[in-house]
């Protein structure tokens, strides 16, 4: 219920209406869903994961284990939203999770009755046999019951974004320590980002009644926030959770941009995932309260003591009408004091027999809660004091087992926290994350005055380390409250005592793990799933360790902790993957003929990031084969034009360019004459073929190399490696000019006729013999002409600066049409080259040597080259290697498929009898048959033999004859003539 005069964050004069499980409620502007539900006396907010126990709100922050709801806003459905972090907005629709048909009456709550059988390791032990049951029975059953919330699998259009920020210092958390640290660092002139996961800066100060400089803490925080806003050096990122600490001062952070808006702007990102690069960081994450394990400590109405007073102070909400507090420390008594100030009578049960009341409330010293009752919410507690057991009616019980410094981020780079006996908590180990220091409660400093002083000290030291000069501020005055504590982890009694509310882990589970010898904390964690829920056990881990320590007869420091890993709080996958959806998934590279190809209805296929036309369909053609066969016949019979700009082009210049090419190619290029082109084979240093292509000599010190489309980047990096790392003495430089030149193949018996229609002047065999090159002019534009052929026809490649590419393509096509020619695509290009036995990366698959390809003669014996020595290794020259061969069908075969394996006729089909495989296959209209290239054991010596192709995926076998890989025009007369 709402308490008048309290709640600085909520304006009840501005009502906000929302629904929860379909029922309409009203809250005030500034309420979270959690505070608004408590204001409406809604205590049961969901069901637990495993036993479907009734659960209520426990905390005020992101550590909330129970109050997870599903929000529906427009088309977007967001499960596992923490009600404690979610502001309400007009007409917000929230639904509870894990309950069916309703949260008050949940069928799977039957699991709770089965709990004696559902303990730790239940799944491991039960669903083992029979093995065949796993896939059909157990897994579907478990999957239906598993999971927190449910995702809508359809894309809802919600926008997410990734962003980058740089600063000198990232201050994580804007409680008293963070505000003070940011102010100190900003005053020192350092570039500061202050990130806090709540919408208002102040941290714990917003939830407490204590004063700073004699004003309420939340007002001091607001004043500090205003000062920081005014500083040029400080950027404030509210609603931003720092989720991970990474190498070299990088941090991940998730910013929620519009969680508070009823109608967010759909064009703006709902969440932003930040990478923040820093020179230093101050962790001011504060401390989190922990609970105490006692029987039935999970009923709605059982909350953290700090949350009970937090809801009163910040939101003006009384979490119950009759409140009790069960604690082992002085700090929790503040809940009684604050509630007393609001006129509520509170009983404090303090486990310490020497506890002293700090004000006017009922204190039961030396008391322990041993049980609770109330099916859908707390009605009564049972406790012991002085050997007597009594009970007390209450509908809200605040628990406090002490405070844990939030050490999470200090552990993200494998650091382990240190046990502090006085605090009964783990504290950060200094230096756990290089460059990150810890201040305030996160470092184990609990009293506010000491927190502020610590923050100034830590921030000043860091500023000086970063070379800034610091002015020490005057510390504000604070009222320091007692922080005494005596550890109490567990009250043993009848009934289950919960540790991890989110994963439904009880003290009994941990003891069972220890009993079954899962004594290591990491084993216990995995066996019980303690701390493995989305909240990562923020409330419960230390508690669970203490129970394991007790069960195994060790101390807590010896028991150790599990590892905290990023993210600190859940991050939606959509935010991490922002920009990777639809067109943003991968870059697209377009040739200058792209628009014309698309306009001609050519289906475009991806080649790396490039898009290339598959074929150019003509009216009446029904399948790609119709078009492909026509294009092949067109090239063989007349002339075809194909954009080959995607091949890598590398401009190589310098006095030592020839010597350099001799080193990277197997052949000799230093003796190549100006105006000539040569085919080259490039090896990796381990002796296998890296790439092939032609290189033209344009001048004495000027070459231009072409690479395959696929290996362009790799070859460029290789050339730079060979030059910079192996032969920096060679005077040569390279530039990738792939994008600078548009290049078109013009192939076919009428290729020269076509050039004469396009190129200024005449192209003769004298000037452009086979493998000749040189400058030509096209309508006054300087172009390069190479007489090379990848089709086996009389062919050229014509290159112009890319800005003329579209125009030249158009020009070439119109001229080709007059000769009975036209464009051809990748399918025809592939058929043409297979007919000629020319290789691509289907053959150069990283496992073949020059000799395997039948190209051993291309490795010059007179000079060294990259890969030459290793190519002579025994394994690479031994008998029995698979060699490139041609394959053609014997009789009628259904289909030859690349990827199929080859076997000797009569052999069992088995990997041990494997003879090789097919790399490329096509139907050849020129030969009138299916053809294939492949690798076959000792293949060159087996021409004329038959082998059997076996393709298991489609269940196809075929008998093939081994032949020379050159099927068409074996003497090359068409190409040279």
């Amino acid at each position, binding site marked *: 219920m709402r308490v008048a005069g309290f709640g600085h964050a909520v304006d009840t004069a501005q009502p906000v209406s929302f629904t929860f499980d379909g029922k309409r409620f009203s809250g005030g502007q500034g309420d979270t869903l959690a505070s608004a539900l408590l204001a409406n006396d809604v205590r049961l907010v969901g069901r637990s994961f495993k036993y479907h126990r009734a659960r209520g709100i426990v905390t005020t922050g992101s550590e909330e284990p129970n109050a997870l709801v599903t929000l529906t806003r427009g088309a977007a459905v967001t499960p596992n939203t923490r009600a404690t972090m979610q502001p309400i907005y007009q007409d917000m629709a929230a639904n509870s999770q894990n309950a069916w048909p309703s949260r008050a009456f949940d069928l799977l709550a039957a699991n709770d009755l089965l709990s004696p059988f559902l303990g730790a390791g239940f799944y491991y032990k039960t669903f083992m046999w029979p093995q065949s049951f796993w896939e059909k029975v157990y897994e579907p059953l478990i999957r239906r019951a598993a999971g927190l919330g449910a995702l809508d699998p359809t894309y809802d259009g919600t926008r997410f974004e990734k962003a980058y920020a740089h600063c000198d210092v990232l201050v994580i958390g804007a409680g008293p320590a963070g505000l003070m640290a940011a102010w100190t660092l900003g005053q020192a002139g350092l570039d500061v980002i202050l990130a806090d996961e709540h919408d208002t800066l102040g941290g714990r100060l917003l939830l407490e009644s204590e004063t700073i400089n004699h004003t309420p803490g939340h007002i001091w925080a607001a004043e500090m926030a205003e000062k920081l806003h005014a500083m040029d050096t400080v950027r404030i990122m509210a609603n931003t959770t720092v989720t991970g600490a*990474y*190498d*070299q001062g*990088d941090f991940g952070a998730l910013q929620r941009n519009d969680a508070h808006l009823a109608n967010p702007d759909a064009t703006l990102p709902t969440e932003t995932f930040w990478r923040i*690069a820093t020179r230093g960081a101050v962790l001011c994450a504060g401390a989190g309260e922990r609970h105490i394990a006692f029987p039935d400590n999970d009923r709605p109405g059982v909350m953290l003591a700090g949350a009970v007073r937090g809801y009163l102070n910040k939101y003006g909400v009384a979490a119950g009408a009759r409140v009790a507090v069960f604690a082992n420390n002085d700090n929790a008594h503040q809940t009684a004091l604050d509630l007393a100030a609001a006129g509520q009578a509170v009983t404090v049960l303090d486990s310490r027999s020497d506890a002293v009341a700090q004000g006017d409330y009922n204190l039961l010293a030396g008391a322990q809660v041993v049980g609770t009752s109330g099916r859908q919410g707390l009605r009564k507690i049972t406790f012991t004091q002085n050997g007597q057991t009594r009970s007390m009616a209450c509908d809200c019980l605040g628990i406090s087992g002490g405070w844990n410094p939030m050490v999470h981020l200090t552990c993200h*780079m494998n650091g382990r926290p240190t046990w502090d006996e006085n605090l009964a908590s783990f504290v950060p180990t200094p230096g756990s994350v*290089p460059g990150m220091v810890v201040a305030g409660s996160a470092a184990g400093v609990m009293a506010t005055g000491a927190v502020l002083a610590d923050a100034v000290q830590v921030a000043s030291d860091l500023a000086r380390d970063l070379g800034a000069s610091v002015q020490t501020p005057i510390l504000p005055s604070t009222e320091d409250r007692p922080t005494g504590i005596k550890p109490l982890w567990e009250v043993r009694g009848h009934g289950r005592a919960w540790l991890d509310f989110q994963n439904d882990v009880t003290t009994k589970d941990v003891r069972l793990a220890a009993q079954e010898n899962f004594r290591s904390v990491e084993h216990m964690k995995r066996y019980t799933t303690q701390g493995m829920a989305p909240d990562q056990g923020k409330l419960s881990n230390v508690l669970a360790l203490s129970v394991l320590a007790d069960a195994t007869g060790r101390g807590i420091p010896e028991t150790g902790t599990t590892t905290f890993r990023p993210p600190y709080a859940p991050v939606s996958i959509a935010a991490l993957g922002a920009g990777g959806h639809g067109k943003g998934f991968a870059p697209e590279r377009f040739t200058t003929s792209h628009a014309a190809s698309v306009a001609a209805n050519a289906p475009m296929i991806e080649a790396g990031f490039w898009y290339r036309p598959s074929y150019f369909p003509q009216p009446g053609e029904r399948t790609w084969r119709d078009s492909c066969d026509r294009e092949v016949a067109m090239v063989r019979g007349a002339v075809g034009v194909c954009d080959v700009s995607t091949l890598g082009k590398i401009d190589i210049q310098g006095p030592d360019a020839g010597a350099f090419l001799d080193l990277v190619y197997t052949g000799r290029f230093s003796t190549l004459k100006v105006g000539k082109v040569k085919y080259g084979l490039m090896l990796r*240093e*381990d002796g296998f073929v890296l790439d092939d292509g032609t290189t033209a000599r344009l001048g004495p010190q000027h070459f231009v190399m072409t690479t395959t489309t696929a290996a362009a*980047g790799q070859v*460029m*990096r290789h050339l*730079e*490696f060979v*030059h*910079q*790392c*192996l032969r*920096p003495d060679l005077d040569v430089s390279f530039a990738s000019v792939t994008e600078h030149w548009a290049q078109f193949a013009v192939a076919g018996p009428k290729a020269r006729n076509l050039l004469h229609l396009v190129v200024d002047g005449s192209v003769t065999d004298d000037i452009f013999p086979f493998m000749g090159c040189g400058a030509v002019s096209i309508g006054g534009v300087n172009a390069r002409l190479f007489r090379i052929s990848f089709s086996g026809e009389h062919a050229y490649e014509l290159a112009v600066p890319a800005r003329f590419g579209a125009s030249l393509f158009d020009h070439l096509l119109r001229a080709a049409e007059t000769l009975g020619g036209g464009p051809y695509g990748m399918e025809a290009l592939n058929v043409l080259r297979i007919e000629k036995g020319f290789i691509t990366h289907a053959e150069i698959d990283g496992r073949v040597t020059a000799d395997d390809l039948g190209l051993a003669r291309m490795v010059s014996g007179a000079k*060294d080259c990259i890969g*030459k*020595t*290793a190519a002579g*290794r025994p394994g690479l020259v031994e008998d029995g290697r698979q060699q490139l061969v041609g394959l053609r069908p014997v009789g009628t075969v259904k289909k030859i498929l690349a990827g199929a394996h080859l076997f000797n006729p009569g052999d069992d089909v088995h990997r041990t009898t494997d003879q090789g495989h097919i790399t490329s296959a096509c139907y050849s209209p020129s030969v009138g048959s299916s053809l294939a290239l492949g690798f076959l054991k000792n293949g060159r010596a087996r021409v004329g033999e038959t082998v059997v192709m076996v393709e298991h995926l489609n269940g196809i076998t075929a008998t093939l004859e081994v032949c020379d890989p050159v099927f068409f025009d074996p003497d090359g007369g068409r190409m040279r003539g």
Partner: protein
Amino acid sequence: MKIPCPLCGARDSREFSYLGHAGLLDRPAPDAGDAAWDDYLHNRDNPAGVTEDLWSHDYGCAAWVVVTRNTATHGILSSRLAKDGAA
């Protein structure tokens, strides 16, 4: 993560591609023998501590950079241009 390029300064690691240990700078002579070539091509130490790697600043200046780093701490200690030879 950032890698200090001697030419460009500290740059995001995604601008670089990794090749392997800086021992690749010491290419054996063609007649150095099988053992030397086997070492060069295949055998690598896997130190827990300081090591030298070759990185290519592909999306930057195209320099090959020798980066000295600590595999145990992920700390990047120094860098130099590969073309300047061994340290």
